[in-house]
Every structure is written in C-alpha cells, then in structure tokens.
C-alpha cells in the first residue's frame, strides 16, 4: 500500500467526510498540518483567537447539520478552545477538534506548550483521543467523525502529537464503522410508540414541548405533521426554535424563564406533555414540583440519560426524534381509533383557552416615543429580512429578545449558546454560518458586553470577505445581570456598569468594516436597510432604552406560573 504522511492522511480523512472549510490557528505543533492544508482544496480559515475557531466551526455545524472542524495548536491554543468546546458539548453540536500535541517522547515532561488537553476536555467532549501511534491515526479520525455526528451529537477532540503526524502511514479504504461499545438507539420500541399514541388520543389538554433534538435530527417536518394532524399546541425551548414554524397558529413560542405567558400557562395546565428532544433544563422547568403538575409525560430522546434525569417520565421512548415521530405519524395514519376531525375538534376548547391566555398577556413591550426599544429592533430585523436570515446571538438580554421577537419558521436559521450561555459566541458563529451559506443574510444579535469578548473576529470576517451583520443592542450595561440586580438585589449594580465602552462605529471602521448608529426609533429602519444593502461586515450600534428588562420572567427557583410580566 502506498504510504502518505500523517498530515496528508488527516486531510484525506477530512475530505472523505466532505469537509470544505475548517477554522484554525497555527503554532509549532501543527505547522505540518497547516503546511499540508495549503495544498489542499480545504479552506483553512485563520481566526484571531482559538475560541473563535471552535465557535465558528460550531456555527457552521448548527446551520448545516454537518460536522464542524477546528484545528488548534498545543498548549494555550488548545486551552483557548475549551470554552467553545464546552459550549458545543452543552448544546450537542457535532464537532471534531484537532489539537496539536508535543512529540510523544516529550509527553508528560512539562514540555514547551504541553497540556493534557485530553484530560482537560474529558468532561466537556462526547469523547476524545490522544493518538500515540501513527498506525491508529486514520481509524481514530474516522471514529471521531462517526461519534461526533451519530447518536446524540457532540464535540470529539483528537490530540495529535507532532511526531505522529509526521510519520508515514497507510490509508486503508473506509469501511462502515461498527463499534461494539457504541450503538445509539435510533429506532423506537413499537410498544412504546403505541402506548404513547393511545395516551395522546385520550388527552384533552396536550402540549408538544420541542427541544434542540428536533433540530439535530432534522425532524421538523415530522413534528409539524404530528402537531397539525392532532391539532396540538407546540412550545419550543431556546434550542428548539425553528423546530416548528413560529408563525403557525399552533405555536405558543418559547417556554421557560423568558418564555411566553401562554406557553408556561399551557404547560402548567396540560394533562399530557410530549417532550421531543428536550431535556427538562432548569431554565425550562423552574421549580420542579410545580412543572406540568397534572401532566402525564411522554419523552422522546436518543440519550437515555436525559430521560427521567430531572423529571420522572411516564412513557419513555429512546430513539432518534425523526424516527420516533415518523413511527407515531404512521401509527395514527393506520389506526382505526384515530379520527382526525374528531380529535382536532376535541382540542378546540383547549386551543380556545390558550388563545385567551395570549389575549390576556401577549408577547409585547411598552413603546416609549422615539426611544429605541430592543424588541422593536428585533421585530424590524425580522420584517426586513422576511424572517429568513440566519440569526446568531451573544448572551444576555439581547439573546432573549432575539429568541422572543424573531419569528423562526425554519430549523437551522438560529444559532445561540443555550446550555452554557457563552458570551462571545455570536460573532464567530455568524462567521461560521456565513462561510457555509455565503448567499444568506447572517446577523449576530449582540450585547455591548458580549461583543467585546470575541470582537477580534471582525478581522477574520474582513479577511474572508464574510459580510456578517452585527446588531448591537447597546444598553451600556451587562444588561441581563443588571436586570437580576434591579429585580432581586435592590438595584445595586455591582460590576454591571461598563464605564468605558468603545465607540463601535469607529471600532468597525478600524477593522475596515462599516459602522452605523441609531439613537432614535425613527432611525432604526434606515440603519438596518443600509446594513443589509452593504456588501461588507457591518456593525449596527443601536443605543437602546438602557434599563429595559426581559419579560416575562420566571425568577430562578419559582414555579413557571409565577411570571413577572411587562
């Protein structure tokens, strides 16, 4: 067999997996790989910070459904990536992170730029590897991609000592991967499907509670079919937005801490909760004993550990969401007990109650003359992009307003750090998304605090002609924390007032990007239009009502019915 270098083999593995773009930052331990990449057809995007590389790969993965790849050097390169790896892990995003490592004879000697990155990332990767022997290189990489994208997806890190990458290796043909010890369950148990479907037929007040698993398994159509077939209302988690059309009359929007009044009331009064690819996170459930207290719970998830972890489940279904929903739809289609018109009609009183809740407390905000309300900015973004943009976010109030007021009608147009809540996620993620879909409008909805965490990636956006748009909802505060201080800490704004903030318009210009500012409501539309028409990276600096809060809000540890409202 013809031998090739380890670096060549790695590149061939990437090509085999269909990888066209990776994100990286070089250093001594990965010079060989960077060198080899130069001659390949893979675009190696040079970021400005390793956290940015992994977030960008993550953004690409979320909008495409493919595995994102990042390449970091050993030591500080690898540790700089850790926050972003943990971000992907918490949201089950498929990534392969390649890190350089010192040569094998030096491992364990505190060599220059040596860290035990496999040890460090063990709790925040789905799996990780140190390749000590060049003959394992190809099989390890193939396994890494397999693990990253199958089952409940997640980041997989492969640590590559410099001498291993330099060795000559065989490149055997790829065979289907079968791992004795890793066989995720895709197919649902037919008995459980039947049990669930029969239960659904008996329910008077059912609610579909949709999480990120629906997006990850591309099950939005099956879910939509089920909801419409049975005329059942749907609520989504932060990660599940787009899993069901946000403009559909059956959509109640998001649930949980900053969810809609309607969604939280519906869950609290439901007699059947059908959780699909969701994990009963504390931001969703609030006080556990008051969460869906009257409901029988059906839970579909590919990860058995998610089931009955926080909330006791009555009918567990371990399966891929798409497979399980397909089986449920088929069951209803073939069941003589199911009369579509009759079931739909039987849910009308429930939908009417839900409609009343919405009428009583719709999602909204108080308009205050010419002051810019952040919610208005998001509504305008939605309107002017026809709800069709890819939206990434930073973390904090900006993120919640984006989630509440942009109508996500399709999956994979939304990339936000849900589980970890990582400030600094949005800009690099937007770059990753834009690299994948250059023809689409990609907007990072940002806070003035978060944007500074990875602002350096403006240079990456410029270098790769990646005209992402950044909408800063500038309250000159670490707003979400300030909101908690306003509501629960007697307005003592400890550490949340940023006395020095850069002039974002000038900052954009310094990077060769365009900076625009709106200080009045009447200027918002023109700024957005100009940004969208500009073929360059643009920062829109929206100076918003400083002390606007995100409502509804369920205070931490309270029941989800105890909402603070506008």
């Amino acid at each position, binding site marked *: 067999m013809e031998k090739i270098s380890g670096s060549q083999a790695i590149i061939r593995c990437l090509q085999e997996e269909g990888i066209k773009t990776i994100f990286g930052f070089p250093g001594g331990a990965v010079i060989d790989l960077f060198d080899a990449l130069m001659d390949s057809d893979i675009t190696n995007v040079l970021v400005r910070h390793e956290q940015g590389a992994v977030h960008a790969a993550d953004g690409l993965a979320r909008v495409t459904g493919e595995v994102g790849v990042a390449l970091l050097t050993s030591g500080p390169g690898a540790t700089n990536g850790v926050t972003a790896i943990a971000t992907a892990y918490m949201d089950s995003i498929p990534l392969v992170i390649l890190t350089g490592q010192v040569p094998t004879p030096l491992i364990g000697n505190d060599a220059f730029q040596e860290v035990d990155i496999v*040890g460090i990332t*063990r*709790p925040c990767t789905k799996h990780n590897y*140190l390749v000590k022997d060049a003959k394992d290189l190809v099989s390890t990489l193939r396994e890494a991609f397999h693990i990253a994208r199958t089952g409940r997806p997640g980041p997989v890190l492969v640590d590559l000592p410099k001498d291993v990458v330099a060795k000559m290796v065989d490149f055997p043909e790829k065979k289907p991967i079968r*791992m*004795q010890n*890793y066989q995720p369950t895709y197919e649902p148990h037919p008995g459980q499907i039947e049990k669930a479907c029969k239960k659904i037929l008996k329910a008077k007040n059912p609610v579909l509670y949709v999480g990120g698993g629906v997006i990850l398994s591309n099950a939005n159509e099956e879910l939509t079919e089920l909801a419409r077939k049975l005329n059942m209302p749907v609520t989504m988690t932060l990660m599940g937005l787009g899993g069901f059309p946000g403009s559909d009359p059956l959509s109640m929007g998001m649930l949980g801490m900053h969810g809609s009044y309607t969604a939280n009331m519906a869950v609290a009064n439901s007699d059947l909760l059908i959780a699909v690819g969701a994990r009963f996170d504390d931001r969703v459930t609030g006080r556990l004993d008051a969460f869906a207290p009257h409901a029988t719970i059906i839970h579909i998830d590919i990860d*058995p*550990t998610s089931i009955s972890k926080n909330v*006791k489940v009555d009918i567990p279904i371990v399966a891929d969401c798409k497979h399980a929903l397909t089986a449920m739809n088929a069951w209803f289609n073939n069941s003589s007990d199911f009369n579509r018109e009759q079931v739909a009609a039987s849910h009308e009183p429930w939908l009417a109650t839900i409609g009343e809740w919405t009428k009583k407390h719709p999602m909204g905000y108080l308009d205050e003359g010419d002051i810019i309300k952040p919610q208005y900015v998001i509504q305008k973004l939605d309107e002017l992009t026809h709800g069709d943009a890819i939206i990434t976010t930073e973390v904090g109030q900006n993120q919640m307003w984006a989630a509440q007021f942009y109508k996500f009608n399709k999956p994979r147009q939304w990339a936000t750090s849900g589980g970890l809540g990582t400030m600094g996620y949005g800009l690099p993620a937007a770059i990753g998304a834009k690299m994948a879909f250059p023809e689409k409008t990609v907007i990072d909805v940002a806070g003035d605090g978060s944007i500074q965490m990875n602002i350096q990636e403006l240079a990456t956006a410029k270098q790769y002609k990646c005209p992402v748009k950044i909408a800063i909802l500038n309250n000159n505060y670490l707003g979400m924390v300030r909101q908690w201080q306003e509501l629960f800490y007697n307005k003592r704004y400890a550490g949340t007032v940023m006395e020095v903030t850069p002039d974002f318009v000038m900052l954009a210009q310094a990077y060769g990007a365009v900076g625009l500012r709106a200080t009045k409501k009447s200027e918002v539309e023109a700024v957005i239009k100009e940004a969208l028409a500009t073929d360059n990276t643009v920062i829109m600096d929206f100076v918003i009502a400083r002390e606007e809060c995100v409502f509804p809000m369920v205070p931490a540890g309270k029941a989800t019915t105890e909402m603070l409202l506008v």
Partner: protein
Amino acid sequence: MKHTISVLLQNKPGVLSRVTGLFSGRGFNIESLSVAETLEPSISCLTLVTRGDEAIIEQITKQLHKLIDVIKVTDISDSEYVEREMVLIRVKAEAQTRAEVLRVIDIFRGKVVDVSPKSYAVEVTGSASKVQAIIDILKPIGIQEIVRTGTIAMARASKK
C-alpha cells in the same frame, strides 16, 4: 440503598479517569472501586459500590453506559450475587495478645501472612460486612495498618 455495579470497559489509558470523573463531576459517590483485566486482556472489569435512591442509581448506570469506552454495565445487586472483599490487617500481637489474635483469625477463617515479634499481618476474605466485623473486633487489640481491596462481585448463575 447500597448498589454494587459491575462495568466492563476498554482496557486503555484514561478510561478509569472517565469513570471517576463522571462520579465526581455529577456528585455521585463511590464507596469502593476495584478494577482489573478480564480473561480478554483488552477488556477490564470494574466493580464499584455506590449508594443512592432508585433515580440516582438509574442515572449512574445510564451515565456509565454513555461513556464510549464502556461496554457493559450491570447493577449486580438487582439479582442474586456473591461479593467478596479482601483485607490485609497488621495487628499488634505481643505475648499477652498473640493467642487471642490467632483465635479471632481462626474464627474468621483468616490467614497469617507475615509475622514479626510484635505483630501479625492477617489476610481475611469475605463480604464487606465480614471484613468490617473482623476490623471491629481487632481494633481494641491494636490495628497498626489496614489495606482493603474494595468489593468485587459476580452474579450467581441461574439455578435452572
């Protein structure tokens, strides 16, 4: 409730730390843990004793199973099983207590494995409670050092 869980895992570097990291990271407790190669050298068997209500034990077994390097997880205490632990005890054995020590060892079917003018090293095997019992009895005489292996366990074969 105490549970004895048996885990088959890949015999590779770092695998044990995945298991212990899982326990510390998720706040599960480990009372004892013992691990060694199986007949198949590429696979290790790990026995761990832990405590928790049903929901916690369910999480523990599921989380263990989720680790890629874990092949099989069995909650042995779900059915009939045998468990053994071995302890080495160095106990003070001077003129006036030597006979007493030997008598205790005999009752517990232990063995003296090392002798010095002032002490015996004793080996005892049995259930964790038997091991605890001999420790409790020898304590007043004067235990100088003990080393326990932690429990290992095996499900009983079906009687059919």
